[in-house]
């Protein structure tokens, strides 16, 4: 049991345990937090696999950006209400999912448990040591004959080596991925943009009222005068409902049936559906 073995074992237990908890929690915030734990454990394993740069990127990007994005969205959708903590799926669905997952596991494991790699030595074994790169030549002031030769590769898994190979051998992939990111940005902006008549996050009662204004594309919530001018029946204004909930009902009704103002009863029904 070398040090790397212990590290690997601990990290893998954490990863498996955390991911199991991710998929079983009812509250999505808990799922997010456990996901971050799993990702961190995976980052540890990455570092053990001589991929230091990628381990760092895993923390920065995955755990630090993607999961935080999840948190943002959950907050935007106002956790704790009924819409987010959904009931469990029925037993037959969970059972069949478990069976299918087990089948996948068996199939993949049988793919990986091949004869030629089954009894591979551990990564700490000297036979699998990553060769060290040759030392860098010291640059001289003399005129170099013709094209200078490319410097020898840096150590395996470092940032320098990664940048070397990416910008030299895999430049096209790099450019392509930047285009993909651009497209994703454009798409996200268009999809998540607030439109007129949407339920504003601040109009809903509870936590997050103030956060609505800072959202991308946020507009101001419609005022009561706007709603009445838009043809909402006067009964709603007098119904004595809390202001936010009333606006929510009206806006939802308007989304569904267009401007014209259904009666209070049908608005109440649509909200329940």
């Amino acid at each position, binding site marked *: 049991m070398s040090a*790397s073995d212990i590290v690997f074992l601990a990290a893998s237990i954490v990863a498996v345990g955390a991911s199991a908890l*991710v998929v079983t929690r009812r509250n999505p915030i808990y799922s997010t937090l456990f996901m971050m734990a799993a990702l961190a454990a995976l980052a540890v394993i990455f570092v053990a696999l001589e991929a230091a740069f990628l381990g760092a990127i895993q923390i920065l990007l995955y755990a630090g950006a993607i999961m935080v994005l*999840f948190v943002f969205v959950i907050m935007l959708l106002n956790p704790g209400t009924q819409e987010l903590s*959904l009931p469990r799926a029925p037993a037959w669905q969970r059972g069949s999912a478990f069976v299918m997952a087990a089948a996948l596991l068996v199939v993949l494991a049988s793919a990986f448990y091949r004869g030629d790699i089954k009894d591979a030595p551990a*990564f700490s074994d000297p*036979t699998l040591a990553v060769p060290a790169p040759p030392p860098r030549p010291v640059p001289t002031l003399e005129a170099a004959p013709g094209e200078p030769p490319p410097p020898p590769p840096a150590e*395996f898994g470092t940032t320098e080596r*990664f940048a070397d190979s990416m910008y030299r051998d895999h430049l096209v992939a790099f450019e392509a991925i930047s285009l993909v990111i651009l497209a994703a940005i454009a798409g996200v902006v268009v*999809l998540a943009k607030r439109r007129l008549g949407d339920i504003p996050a601040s109009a809903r009662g509870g936590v997050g009222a103030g956060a609505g204004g800072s959202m991308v594309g946020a507009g101001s919530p419609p005022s009561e005068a706007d709603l009445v001018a838009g043809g909402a029946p006067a009964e709603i204004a007098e119904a004595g409902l809390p202001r936010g909930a009333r606006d929510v009902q009206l806006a939802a009704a308007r989304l569904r049936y267009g401007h014209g103002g259904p009666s209070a009863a049908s608005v109440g029904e649509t909200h329940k559906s």
Partner: protein
Amino acid sequence: MFNLTNCLILSAVLFAIGAYGVLARRNLLVVLMSVELMLNAANLTLLSFSRWFAGGGAPGGSTALAAWPSATWVTRAPDAGHIFVLISMAIAACEVAVGLALLIALFRVRQTVSTAEVAELRG
């Protein structure tokens, strides 16, 4: 303990757990997270093999290349696995962003993130 096989088994387990999450959970957020989990499992596989092949260049450790003599990319592009993983992470980020944007748009209309309640595209 810390060898290629166990790494791969670990990634298979994570993949299976992610698959369970996609199939069994109704909360769209959790489904998206499970998809991320599956992507991470794939990344782990890629890095395991990258390490495995990188370690096969030593004079005494030619077992890797002996096992897979057709893996010529090992000499031509030894860092391909790492590059692939970075690309995969970037794509995952884009995918999560777009997915969450869709989820927000959906929520605005339907006030729900349950997959069971947005089944209008039925036959």
